[in-house]
């Protein structure tokens, strides 16, 4: 087993005081340079859990989080942690492609510029490398100044991936990145996710169990805020240990 990039210890979360917790006492290691998938029915807490990993839940009013999330051994919830630099290290791609209303080039260069990169040559290199790594370069290299909105849905999602990796994160979180895409575009993103894990640690939330089975090294199954079972994907999908996992992946509920 390689080293854990992220270690989550006894993480619990309630959206407001008195409500049943959305996450209960979740403990999980995420290996470096691996691809982990979170599966489970709607409302099981998998997206909430993903968003805890780069503190996206901080925005939610009244949220209460206990436990620890360690990135390379350091607690991301420690008071001295700069959330902006945390999110640079732990990037995110969302369910619906959300390109900014700029050109393709500007979308990718946005993050590096924000971080102070002004050199046009270096920005050009970053744009090319990011678009190559997101598998979009060949399709857009001749029209980098076209509006991002002119791209197809699948291309827009790959652009968002390029934008996320332009700031060279260490972890890439993907929250149902293909749920708005057709099967061909989905296949491209899945292939891409498997390429990306060679460089980054990738965590993907998916409604689609088959997607988890196809792409991931490890799978974690959530149910009603609880992490029911996690382990190597081949094991979860051939010999799950918990009856609830078995019932879910065989389509008996959820």
């Amino acid at each position, binding site marked *: 087993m390689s080293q854990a990039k992220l270690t989550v210890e006894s993480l619990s979360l309630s959206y407001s005081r008195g409500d049943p917790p959305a996450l209960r006492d979740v403990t999980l290691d995420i290996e470096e340079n691996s691809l982990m998938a979170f599966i489970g029915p709607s409302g099981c807490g998998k997206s909430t859990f993903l968003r805890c990993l780069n503190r996206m839940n901080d925005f939610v009013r009244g949220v209460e989080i206990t436990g620890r999330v360690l990135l390379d051994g350091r607690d991301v919830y420690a008071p001295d942690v700069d959330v902006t630099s945390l999110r640079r290290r732990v990037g995110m791609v969302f369910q619906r492609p959300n390109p900014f209303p700029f050109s393709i080039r500007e979308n990718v260069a946005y993050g590096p510029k924000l971080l102070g990169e002004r050199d046009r040559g270096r920005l050009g290199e970053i744009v090319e490398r990011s678009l190559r790594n997101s598998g979009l370069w060949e399709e857009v290299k001749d029209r980098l100044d076209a509006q991002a909105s002119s791209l197809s849905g699948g291309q827009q999602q790959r652009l968002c991936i390029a934008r996320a990796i332009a700031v060279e994160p260490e972890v890439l979180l993907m929250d149902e990145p293909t749920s708005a895409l057709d099967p061909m575009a989905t*296949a491209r993103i*899945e*292939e891409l996710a*498997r390429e990306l894990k060679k460089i980054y640690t990738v965590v993907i939330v998916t409604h689609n169990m*088959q997607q988890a*089975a*196809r*792409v991931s090294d490890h799978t974690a199954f959530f149910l009603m805020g609880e992490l029911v079972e996690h382990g190597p*994907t*081949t094991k979860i*999908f*051939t010999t799950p240990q918990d009856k609830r996992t078995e019932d879910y992946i065989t389509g008996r509920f959820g």
Partner: protein
Amino acid sequence: MERYRDMEMDELFSKLFELASLTQRALSDSVWALSHHDKALARKVKDGDDAIDELALTIDTESFQIIARYQPVAMDLRSLEACIRIALDLERISDLAVSVAKTTIGLDVRIKPLLGLAPMGEKVTEMLDTVMKSLLERDSAMAESVFPMDDEVDSLEDMVFKELLEVVTETRGVIQGADRLLMVARFLERAGDHVTNISEQICYMLTGRRVKASDFRRPLPGADDK
């Protein structure tokens, strides 16, 4: 995702080819050891069986993992079914090779060389070679070409039986050795049947058509005289 699935399938099939080559080696070594009273080689065949069993199990496990992960259909699904079943047949053939090897280890009497036994072993080895080549080249006609070869194996078995009867009638005291050799002929005949199973499986995988070895039986020269 296609690329990853294809890569995993390719790796799986290279393991299957490795299993086939180990099995083929075990089979030909076991027959050579018997013909040449080479107990050391026979022991080597026997000792090598664990590795073969382990590889067959790995192939089985990985095939199921691919099914669970990718939900293959059509040719992909038939390929995995073929892989699982072929691995099973190969593993059985290697068990039969071990049985031949054990016979050599336990055989103390020397019986005059039997004309049919070595050719039987060679023929089965050739059949195995042909089916695996047909799988490699995705050639169902080549796979079907082993069916008549199995008929030859069967008639060689008859020949060995007759030879042994003569030996037993001529020489008293060799019944114990002769019955063992008769078993060897049966082991080899069984091995041939497993190869035809493999061939049927390859035909189904490549064409989606179920063929049976019995559909390809062709009368051997002289068979009409019986």
